[in-house]
């Protein structure tokens, strides 16, 4: 680069010559940086900049040779052109001299690496726009499983090579420009606030390199045991004028219908015969037969509005009933009986709104011999699917370098992120999730448009779920509240939450070239954010009104010193060595305050508005420091044999002082065997590699000493309790031992290449808060113990099936299979519960996998479920039977991209095969009679919900213990009195196993059509250097899935407990984006 600038300035002296300007790009239209442009027969040459642009003084008749790594040189004869556009055909399988960013930001040529990494360019990453860069990694890296949620700005799981830790984080570490980037899940109080890697500006990313195994990542210390996502951001380039890029995109979303619930429309709201009593006998079906406020004592049919199931009376237009709206003053049906029919607007999509995202960014960069800078600003606005919800972000990225002397350069980078959100989506089984209504507890006689009108007209909690008492006491305007559920619009507009985050991520660094082969780097970095979260539960809601305010902060400082050695020892040997130290200090704090006993003044949200004295805020303050020193050496023989060894020593504050030091050794070797065999036309390169590494791990903060918790003083007397975690002063570091072997090859002029890796990682001596018997007095004991092994195969294939003039077809395939095995658990225990939910568990099971689903199961005869004499299933007496495994059999992705002149088309198919998910929605929604299979006809052609005596009921598929088919009908007429027969909930007819589904999917994840205005058109425009247009789609089509009404990818926020359990997910969104990029 420096050379180019120098040459340009020298050449400009020769005035008789003319200056030719050119642009070098690859077949995909991507600029080729550092291409060499040489005048044939001379030593005059230059190189292209990051935009692929070069300038050179030439004379007519000169021939320019344009060449680049991995591309055949192109010759262009100068006649009278002043502008050139050169396309280089870069080989698809770039194994040779591609530079990748490895641990600690050290760039190494890919061919020399003795371990598995996979690099993705910004172009590959950002084909479709996203507000969370993490989600765009899905399907693009072998061995990387990304699970994105459908919540607004929600969480994503990023798991490399399987779940290794029983209880601590399994999420990959993010590193941006050599500095760890915090990715903690911010979710709280049942709202999904997302992970903080979503603060990374997708427009600022230059490349992503994924370090999959421990050998690649060991230098990062303990956090690297789950693999590392190394992100390199864009750098300023040396150029005469400023480079300016403006990017503007709009994304419109529609609902993927296959992820929306469908309802039966034969029966409405009610809970069977609930509510009948001697004083209020039944009348028609399952209505209450009671006097209401305006019936002058006469009894009328009233819908069981206090119930939230759809197991009420059969719809019948001839029946006139008091529906919920008869009790909502101002409603057109107030005080009136109306025909008993499904409502016109009862669907999820009558409530949810189509989302819109806009992204606008500007990037400016420039530079001279003295240094470079870049400055970027991005604004995103993401309107969610729930009414009154959004996430707004402002991102500012600035980085600069300055060359103080030839040897000394300094640099700095600062990123400021500001995020503001309204109404993050609830994801737990609670009132905070409006999605729960539409998937579990709902009646199709409820009209959402009326609920909306009622709320906006009265600004009260006009409820579809009136308490029974409302019938008797409501005398106009004297509204009572709901029994269980608030009006969903009240929930969105009155019980709203908001959060904001301000983040600074930056570093200052110094680089000094001590000698030609020795380089010293010092860097200090900061990652800091503070957040505010507020949640309101308004006066008039079902439960006690409250206001909650949580202030939290995160801070990480890293101080790095690094000495780099790189020298050719003789003509055959090159030695690279490094020696460094790292001090990492983190501190996480939070203050969580909530009002007590209600709010005094409605719609006034301050802690001071608490009806009773609030409890003292809950405070946390977790500080930690890890001090590490490390060293490494890489010895290369000729250009085909590389031997690499590293060691790191860490000392952590979270371990006992006498046992707080631990080591991570790693050794690897790479051998390019193709260099030793005669060049053939079909084999271009072949390489094998092998490595072994150990990564240590420390304990969570404050897990050595037992502590006490202060409670709210009782009658002015102090009250304390012991923590229910039994900490352990004897903890020692845990270890992950792993090895990996790999084979890479490229054939047929690099038209096809593959990279296959086999790995095994065994995590031993895990620091685990095991679940003891609570008879100990504790809910958890910290111990060292437990071994989990993950082994697997990763395969990636790159191919160029077609390459003709103006047209290229590129294909990339990633495939991986990971097998998780729990080899042992502390104390010989057979299983460890990772999390528990309604009647089910997710466990790590000795001899089996991390991630086994457990719950009630059938008993079987010849593979068929057994029923008893009454026609009901006989459950397995083990209520914690194994009923599923959340781990997929394999995951994969195929990207096809086609390039024709300035047009390109690409699409990504993302596949997950296998893995189980338990659906609480389908379980509860079946119990509540919401779904189509809970109605309809039985084998006799009668409605299943009629009584047995009237020909109703259904035969559960199964056999008797003797193997004969079940022929006994069971009653499904009344959710309670008859034993409503669809659900495992509360011991009804189906076990939990019935609601465990195969979570496989095949998705058309990305589809992009892009067009770049031709250079000859651009050249006629003033100022502008490029115009790129794109039309893209994301998650357009779930080609295959087995889970009804929802996206099988959905989980519960992120983290170990988030997978394999589905509760009230939001529908998946098909996102269509239009994007314009202008370059100046």
């Amino acid at each position, binding site marked *: 680069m420096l050379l180019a600038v120098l040459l340009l300035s020298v050449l400009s002296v020769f005035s008789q010559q003319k200056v030719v300007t050119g642009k070098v790009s690859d077949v995909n239209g991507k600029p080729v940086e550092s291409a060499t442009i040489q005048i044939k027969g001379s030593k005059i040459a230059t190189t292209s900049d990051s935009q692929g642009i070069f300038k050179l003084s030439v004379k007519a008749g000169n021939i320019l040779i344009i060449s680049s790594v991995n591309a055949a040189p192109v010759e262009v004869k100068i006649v009278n052109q002043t502008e050139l556009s050169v396309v280089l055909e870069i080989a698809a399988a770039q194994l040779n001299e591609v530079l990748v960013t490895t641990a600690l930001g050290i760039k190494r040529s890919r061919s020399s690496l003795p371990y598995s990494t996979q690099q993705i360019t910004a172009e590959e990453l950002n084909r479709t726009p996203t507000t969370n860069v993490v989600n765009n990694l899905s399907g693009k890296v072998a061995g990387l499983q990304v699970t994105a949620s459908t919540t607004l700005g929600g969480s994503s799981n990023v798991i490399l090579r399987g779940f290794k830790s029983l209880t601590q984080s399994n999420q990959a570490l993010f590193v941006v420009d050599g500095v760890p980037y915090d990715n903690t899940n911010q979710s709280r109080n049942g709202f999904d606030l997302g992970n903080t890697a979503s603060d990374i500006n997708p427009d600022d990313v230059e490349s992503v390199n994924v370090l999959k195994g421990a050998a690649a990542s060991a230098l990062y210390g303990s956090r690297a045991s789950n693999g590392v996502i190394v992100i390199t951001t864009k750098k300023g380039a040396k150029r005469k004028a400023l480079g300016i890029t403006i990017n503007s995109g709009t994304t419109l979303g529609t609902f993927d219908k296959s992820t929306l619930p469908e309802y039966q429309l034969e029966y409405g709201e009610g809970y069977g015969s*609930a*509510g*009948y009593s*001697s*004083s*209020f006998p039944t009348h028609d079906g399952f209505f209450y037969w009671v006097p209401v406020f305006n019936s002058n004592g006469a009894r009328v049919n009233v819908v069981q509005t*206090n*119930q939230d199931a759809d197991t009420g009376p059969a719809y019948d237009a001839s029946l006139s009933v008091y529906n919920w709206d008869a009790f909502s003053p101002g409603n057109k049906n107030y005080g009136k009986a109306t025909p008993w029919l499904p409502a016109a607007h009862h669907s999820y999509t009558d409530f949810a709104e189509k989302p819109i995202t806009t992204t606008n960014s500007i990037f400016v960069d420039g530079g001279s011999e003295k240094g470079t800078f870049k400055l970027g600003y991005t604004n995103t606005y993401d309107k969610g699917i729930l009414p009154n919800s959004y996430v707004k972000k402002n991102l500012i990225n600035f980085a600069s370098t300055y060359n103080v002397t030839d040897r000394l350069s300094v640099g700095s980078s600062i990123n400021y992120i500001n995020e503001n959100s309204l109404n993050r989506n609830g994801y737990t089984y609670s009132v905070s999730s409006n999605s729960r209504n539409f998937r579990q507890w709902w009646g199709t006689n409820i009209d959402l448009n009326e609920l909306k009108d009622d709320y906006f007209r009265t600004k009260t909690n006009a409820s579809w779920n009136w308490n*029974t*008492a409302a*019938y008797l006491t409501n005398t106009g305007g004297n509204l009572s*509240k709901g029994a269980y559920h608030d009006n969903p619009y009240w929930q969105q507009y009155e019980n709203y939450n908001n959060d904001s985050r301000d983040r600074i991520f930056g570093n200052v660094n110094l680089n000094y070239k001590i000698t030609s082969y*020795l380089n010293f780097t010092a860097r200090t970095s900061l990652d800091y954010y503070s957040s505010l979260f507020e949640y309101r539960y308004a006066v008039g809601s*079902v*439960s*006690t009104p409250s206001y909650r305010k949580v202030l939290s902060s995160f801070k990480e400082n890293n101080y790095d*010193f690094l000495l780099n050695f790189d020298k050719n020892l003789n003509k055959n040997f090159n030695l690279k060595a490094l020696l*460094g130290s*790292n*001090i990492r200090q983190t501190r996480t704090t939070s203050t969580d305050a909530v009002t007590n006993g209600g709010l005094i003044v409605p719609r006034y949200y301050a802690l001071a508005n608490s009806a*009773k*004295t609030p*409890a003292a805020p809950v405070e946390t*303050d977790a500080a*930690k420091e890890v*001090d590490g*020193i490390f060293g490494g050496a890489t010895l290369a023989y000729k250009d085909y044999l590389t031997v690499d060894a590293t060691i790191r020593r860490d000392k952590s*504050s*979270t371990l006992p*002082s006498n046992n707080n030091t631990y080591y991570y050794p790693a050794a690897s070797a790479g051998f390019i065997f193709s260099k030793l065999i005669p060049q053939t036309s079909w084999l271009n390169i072949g390489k094998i590699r092998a490595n072994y590494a150990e990564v240590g791990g420390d304990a969570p*903060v404050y897990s050595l*000493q*037992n502590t*006490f918790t202060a409670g709210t003083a*009782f*009658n002015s*007397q*102090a*009250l*304390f*309790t012991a923590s*229910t975690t039994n900490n352990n002063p004897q903890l020692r570091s845990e270890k992950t031992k792993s090895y990996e072997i790999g084979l890479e090859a490229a054939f047929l002029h690099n038209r096809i290449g593959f990279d296959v890796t086999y790995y095994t990682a065994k995590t031993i001596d895990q620091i685990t808060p095991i*679940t*003891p*018997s*609570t*008879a*100990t*007095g*504790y*809910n958890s004991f910290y*111990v060292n113990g437990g071994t989990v092994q993950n082994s697997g195969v990763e395969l990636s294939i790159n191919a160029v099936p077609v390459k003709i003039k103006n047209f290229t077809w590129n294909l990339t395939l990633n495939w991986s299979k990971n097998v998780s095995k729990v080899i042992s658990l502390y104390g010989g*225990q057979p*299983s460890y519960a990772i999390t528990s939910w309604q009647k089910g568990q997710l*466990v790590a099971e000795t001899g089996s996998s991390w991630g086994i689903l457990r719950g009630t199961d059938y008993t079987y005869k010849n593979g068929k479920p057994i029923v008893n004499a009454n026609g009901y299933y006989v459950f397995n*007496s083990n*209520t*914690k039977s194994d009923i599923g495994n959340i781990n997929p059999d394999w995951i994969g992705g195929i990207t096809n991209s086609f390039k024709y002149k300035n047009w390109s088309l690409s699409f990504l198919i993302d596949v997950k095969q296998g893995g189980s998910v338990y659906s609480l929605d389908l379980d509860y929604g079946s119990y509540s009679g919401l779904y189509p299979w809970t109605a309809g006809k039985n084998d006799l052609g009668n409605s299943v919900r009629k009584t047995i005596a009237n020909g109703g009921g259904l035969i559960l598929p199964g056999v008797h213990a003797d193997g004969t088919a079940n022929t006994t009908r069971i009653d499904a007429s009344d959710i*309670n009195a008859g034993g409503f027969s669809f659900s495992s909930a*509360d011991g009804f007819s189906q076990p939990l196993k019935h609601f465990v589904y195969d979570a496989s999917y095949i998705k058309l994840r990305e589809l992009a059509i892009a067009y770049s205005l031709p250079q000859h058109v651009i050249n006629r425009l003033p100022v502008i250097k490029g115009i790129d247009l794109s039309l893209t789609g994301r998650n357009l089509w779930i080609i295959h899935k087995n889970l009804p009404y929802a996206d099988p990818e959905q989980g519960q926020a992120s983290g170990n407990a988030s997978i394999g359990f589905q509760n009230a997910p939001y529908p998946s969104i098909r996102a269509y984006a239009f994007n314009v990029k202008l370059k100046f």
Partner: protein
Amino acid sequence: MKKISFYITILFIASSCTKSLTDLNTDPKSPVSAPSTALFLGAQKNLVDLYNTTSVSSAPFRVFAQIWTENTYVTESRYILDGVTAGFWNNIYTTSINNFEQAKTAFPNDVTDPSVLRNDKIISDILEVYSYNLLVNTYGNVPYSQAQNRTIPFPKYDDAKTIVYDLITRLDSSIAGLNTSANSLGNSDQIYKGNVTKWKKFAATLKLKLALLIADVDASKASAKALEAVNAGVLQSNSDNATFTFDASAVINSNLIWQNLVNSGRHDFVPSAFFVSTLVGLNDPRLPLLVTKDPNGGYSGGIAGAGNAYGIFSDFSAQWLSPTYPADLLDYSETEFLLAEAVERGIAVGGTAESHYNNAVTASILFWGGTAASAATYLAQPSVAYTTATGTWKQKIGYQKWLAFANRNWDSWTEIRRLGYPNLDVVSPPVGTTNKLPLRYPYPAAEQSSNPINWKAASTALPGGLDVQTAKLFWIQ
């Protein structure tokens, strides 16, 4: 080269800036020690909350006993206990017994007077015995000798009968060891405000209760221990009742019944039809003190096991739903019922069964806010009078004890199991189920996964060898 060594020196200086790494690992927001009396109050309040809660996932005993029943979600009313039985176990061991143990360990740090120290420890132990009484008579064999040990994550279970005998022995030494002329916990004890004499009566009454628990399996020991207890001095009036008055200034310090039934906005329970109709049938003066009138102006309750609509039946009385309404752990009424039973069993505790029965019923009516006159009228009815009421002494005492235990949650269920009356399986079986009244709680499912070897052994030791709710505890006839 000099330069290089300079930088290397910097590296090592930098990496050795580790002056106080270990100090950093001390949680600034959670102390490693706490005042002993504050721990005692934490334990005591947790025990009371556990005893008083309405949570069906912890203590649905009022529902079992059909004092209350459920409205919409009727699983516990139908005696379906899947996933229910963990809360009771977890809370007693972790929030109650653990904190009594922590308090006992911490007392020597704070209390200098040896007599006070001894009293404090003994009072903690009495409540620990009370806690174990709840456990062992709910599940059967439970971890005891290896429980509450920081180094044993998977404790073995001990034989239930052995545990009960040991609890009696612990009460023996507590009664002997309390020094009534010395002070104790003061206001950190929210039951007796540190009154050692009352704790001594409490311990004696608890001993009497445990003695009668084993009366059917070991009559001679029961007799000896009951006599010892009475001689030591049991509760003598309602002013001796072990009541715990809540603090309404904070929600979490309020009566859990108010928290769960009023403050939550939920309507999960109604008085049971069997309970209300029994009170109505006996012209019980406690009826209007316990429940309200229904919208029709009469008294009615929900059918156990059926779905019941809130608002069309009688509701709980205002005093019962008050945020300060006291919990009652052991009372004079129960003491007199126990004495009546002792007389019937031929234990020479003095008085007649009838006199103790009358005292018991009167104490309960007074406790709920009735008058002595109304109690006398009530007792004069042939359906209530001890001599003329229906059935054996077990039935007479059983029915009246059940009514008196309207707010005694666990004890209401336990006395039905022990005395056999009211025999709900016969007189009021819940609709929609063939299940019988649970005789015990199955062990928490978590024990099956977290302590499987010992859980298996304990299950095998149960009558029938299976961990089911129909297995009889050692004292159930």
